């Protein structure tokens, strides 16, 4: 009788095991790599941003762009120019490579912003005021009412670096002073290469948690940023510059994304004071 019971027990246990195994076989394995997953996630990433209260500009290009690795020679470009600045009182700080200038005579500006901007451009284009002034381009996204920011331009695009910038300070419709840094002529180190698109840069920022909730992307531009210094040269690379506004504090920060690899450039944020 015991033998029969054991047999029944074996039969029931193995029968249940069989049922379990058959169910395991029939149930298709959990396939997380469903063909629609990524396509879906790409499409829904905008919705995710929306639900995180992140606003994007109406148009962000999805087309790849192109850029170079550039190099500039590390030299003291501005110190020798001080003597030629006859319209301004200028001094050069060798320790931080900055030229400081103050107009000798008051430069009055129009109250109309467009005209005032043109007057400031005329001022910086005069080599008696600002050395290499014509090589600087007005950057409205970094400027404020009393601080006009110009970035160094090159044949290959604008350079967004503290060492390639002209700041003209204005008070009571008058140019008060300016500071200038200059990197010299940039030349390509390697051939022209394709970059990621502006949209892909913003997406990379979002997935890297560099875009916080409740923020607004106000501007995306391709520009050159400093990568490193090597063998007496500064190497620049194309970066997507993304201006992000905090909706609560209204603070604007500029962040940089490596346009070749979609990686964030660390310690490269720039706060814009409006």
């Amino acid at each position, binding site marked *: 009788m015991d033998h029969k019971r054991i047999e029944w027990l074996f039969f029931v246990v*193995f029968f249940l095991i*069989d049922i379990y195994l058959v169910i395991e076989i029939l149930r298709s394995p959990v*396939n997380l790599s469903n063909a629609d997953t990524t396509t879906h996630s790409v499409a829904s990433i905008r919705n995710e941003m929306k639900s995180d209260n992140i606003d994007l500009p109406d148009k962000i290009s999805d087309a790849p762009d192109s850029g170079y690795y550039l190099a500039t020679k590390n030299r003291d470009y501005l110190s020798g120019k001080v003597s030629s600045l006859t319209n301004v009182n200028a001094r050069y700080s060798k320790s931080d490579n900055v030229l400081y200038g103050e107009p000798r005579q008051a430069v009055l500006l129009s109250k109309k912003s467009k005209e005032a901007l043109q007057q400031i451009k005329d001022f910086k284009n005069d080599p008696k005021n600002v050395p290499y002034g014509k090589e600087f381009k007005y950057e409205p996204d970094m400027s404020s009412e009393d601080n006009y920011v110009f970035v160094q331009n090159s044949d290959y695009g604008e350079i967004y670096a503290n060492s390639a910038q002209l700041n003209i300070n204005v008070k009571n419709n008058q140019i008060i002073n300016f500071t200038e840094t200059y990197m010299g002529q940039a030349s390509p180190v390697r051939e022209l290469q394709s970059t990621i698109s502006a949209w892909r840069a913003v997406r990379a920022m979002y997935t890297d948690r560099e875009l916080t909730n409740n923020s607004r992307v106000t501007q995306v531009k391709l520009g050159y940023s400093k990568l490193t210094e090597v063998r007496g040269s500064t190497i620049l690379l194309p970066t997507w510059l993304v201006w992000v506004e905090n909706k609560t504090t209204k603070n604007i920060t500029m962040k940089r994304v490596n346009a070749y690899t979609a990686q964030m450039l660390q310690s490269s944020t720039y706060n814009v004071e409006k």
Partner: protein
Amino acid sequence: MKFKFKFGEFFLGLATLIVIVLSIVLWIFIMTSDQRFSNIGQQNQNNVTKEQSRNHSSKSLYDLYIPTTSYGFANGNLCQLYDSKNNLTLEFTKEIKKTKATNKIKKIVNTRAKYEEYLNNPNYVQLVYPDEITFSLFNQLNNAANDNREFNRFFISQSNHWIYLGNDQTNEIYQVKITGANFDKLRKYARNARSKYPVRLVRLKEGYSPFYTKAMNARVYSYLTNHQSYSYFVSRLLGTSGVTSKTNKNGQTVYSLNYYTRLRVPDSNSGKHNYLYTHYEKHKIPNATNRLLDSVYYVHQLGLTEQDLRFFDADGANVSYLNYIEGIPVFLNKQDLQVKTTFSTDSINVAFNSVNFQIPIPFDGQTKQLRPTQDVVDDLANHGLKQENIQRIIVGFTEEKDSSHHSLINLIPTYYIKAYDEWKSLGEWEKQDVSTYREVAQLTVNEGGR
């Protein structure tokens, strides 16, 4: 002793035996099911399928499959063109992305004489891949998804409505009517290219190779390099939590994800950076198009910096990729390829090197003189490697460590020759006993003939 046969007991015994055997069979079935395990394995592979890789990352596909060399005419001579400011192959790729074929592909040439007429026709700018790719790789040029016909050369005519695709191996040229492309800028860049090296295209075993007619001073470039850590690749290829075992052999560590996926990691003290990823899966070897596309999927999976990575060679079941710097491929450790995918009926192997050419160093004027190609080929013939055994000859970079900085390398231009299915630098071939290769090749031919 009285034997008493009872049906109930008999059937109970039989049924118990059957359920026990069945459970063993089912268990074995589950444990040996390829499909089951390969699917489970993929859960850790960043949830990206090969299909997605094809559809989703068309930008990356184009970046990997950019033609690497351009030819045009200057003063009546065929020249290899190069311009770092106006990158010809990039300009071509920008336009070809927008192009759509409006009719079927029509074969217009199939003889060597006629093919060579096209090669030497000054009306065409030629954009060339290092090896053949298939028509189906770029869908907009061909509506038939399974067209495995191959080509390696674009002929850009004076018209923006016709494009010609040539196959060096078969001497075939196909004509395709297109819309949406404007190659005017490309033609202008070709006319004004900064470097124009006179070449003649010489037919070798695997197609036409450029023979430089004059000695040239090729630039030596330098890079600061870096390497991703082994944990980066383990995590990308095997997932963060799925690694089931780790074995150490001859200093190399093998990480496994279930029985089917493995990654062999080099010894961190050896200074080597060669990895081998293996995924066991029983299937047929994919066709030519799928081999190319699947290899792209695996390249993306590796997570290497792909900025300079280009398709380099498709040889039987192998597809390989190299970094191209200023239009010249970089061979690692003298003759290694950056990524080499090998398809077989029971596994896919991806051998790769983790080096990343991170920061380019400004050119300091250093050059290396390269002799005319024919002189090199003649010297090799004297050494025993005859021209008819050379499959391809190209100029490539060999890497050399710079003593001034531990991660600084110099890229020295030299001739690279493919013979007996092996890529080696000129210096390496000159060190080889070529007769051994000849004997092995002869033996293979004889065995194949039996």
